[in-house]
């Protein structure tokens, strides 16, 4: 279940970064992937649509602990938590 979520998050990130999903590693930061703040906002939107969740992300507080976006893995963990809270 959580592996499936991780894969779906990576597909979203890869699509936004315009790279193959295999090139997205858990340790990648948004910077590594060439994603700026607009790219990140689009990823958050795609995640909300894909998983039916509401992501507490504010572009003014990128380092907020509410939703960690420091690495791809952090985003995956955040989505797993949000989907678990949903049910």
């Amino acid at each position, binding site marked *: 279940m959580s592996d499936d979520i991780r894969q779906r998050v990576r597909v979203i990130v890869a699509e936004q970064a315009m790279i193959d999903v295999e090139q997205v590693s858990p340790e990648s930061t948004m910077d590594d992937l060439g994603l700026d703040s607009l790219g990140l*906002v689009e990823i958050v939107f795609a995640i909300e649509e894909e998983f039916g969740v509401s992501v507490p992300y*504010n*572009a*003014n507080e*990128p380092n907020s602990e509410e939703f960690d976006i420091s690495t791809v893995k952090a985003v995956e963990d955040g989505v797993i938590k949000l989907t678990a809270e949903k049910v």
Partner: protein
Amino acid sequence: MRRVVVTGTGVVSALGIGYDAHVDALRAGRSGIGPIELIETEGLTIGIAAEAKGYVATDHFTKNELTLRDRVTQMALTATEEAVARSGIDFTDDLGMRTATIIGTSMGGQHTQDDNYRLIYRDGKQRVHPFTVPKLMSNAPASWISMEHGLKGPAWSISTACASSNHAIGQAFHMIRGGMADVAVTGGCESGLTYGVLKAWEGLRVMSKDTCRPFSKTRNGMVQGEGAAILVLEDLDAAKARGANILGEIVGFGMTADANDIVQPSLDGATRAMRAALADAGLDGSEIAYINAHGTATAANDKTECAAIRNVFGDHADRLLVSSTKSMHGHCIGAAGALEMAATLSALGSGIVPPTANFEEPDPDCDLDVVPNEAREADVPFALSNSFAFGGLNAVLVARRFDD
């Protein structure tokens, strides 16, 4: 070249109805930000705004008049009524021909659009109200102002997002200075607190959930507002000849485009706009005592704006007072520059500089005197008012205290 003075101001904002109410609240550092009551907020993540709660449509318009006037037009007309009355100007046929009407608004009649689109998209209705088009069009406020006051000179609306008002006031100033018009009714209006518009802003992830804290380290985004502010600008000699009360003088206007990014601010574009405004005014910068900042309370704007002020003013930046009154009247987008010019004129006239409200903690990236939380008495011979719009369109005005 002719000199251009302000002889009337009118305001509708979250701080009250009327210029005096607006200015009194600014001086008291009282914020108009609070829970949204105008529309149903269920389903919105952001439930706050600077809503003009004191504005009651039926206090100002008959039922018939409201059929043709969106809330944004109502606010513009209400502010115009006050500005014209305060200026004491009499728009005779001849003067009406020589008067320009230039009004900024970013989004026009959003309540009309939202209400009517909801009817057809959600409720499955087959038709919308017959006056939907004339109510929602962005030039409706300018057209209504010209119609109600008999202003038959150049008239149009300007839409440059958050800089709309400054572009409007600047154009009006240059037209009078250059002789294309003798008088101008100018300013801006915005009333976009609708479900659709607020959802759109939420999507950008730049909105604060609690309040607007410009320049504070703890700032977490902007807060939407609504309102209108209108100025009557006149050629100085004509204003003097009729014994008008002169509230201040507009002496410079500069505009630039970043040509860079659709949402990110630019240090270069903002710097060049302030320099252009000072050059237009024939000033070197050392005369400026106060800057009414764009100050949206987003992470990016405030940091970039402070750096741009340092670029332009050098050491003098440390002697400037810089405040963002958006902390109190919210970000009124197309009306922002006009509401802020009202604040700027009040500082010039009284020597009381409005504060940056809701300030909590200094940010090393915004290390200017941002007049935290309490109004300050100061000698303000000249002031700057900044507007930097999404899309990288910048407009800066320079105003001078009138003590001729």
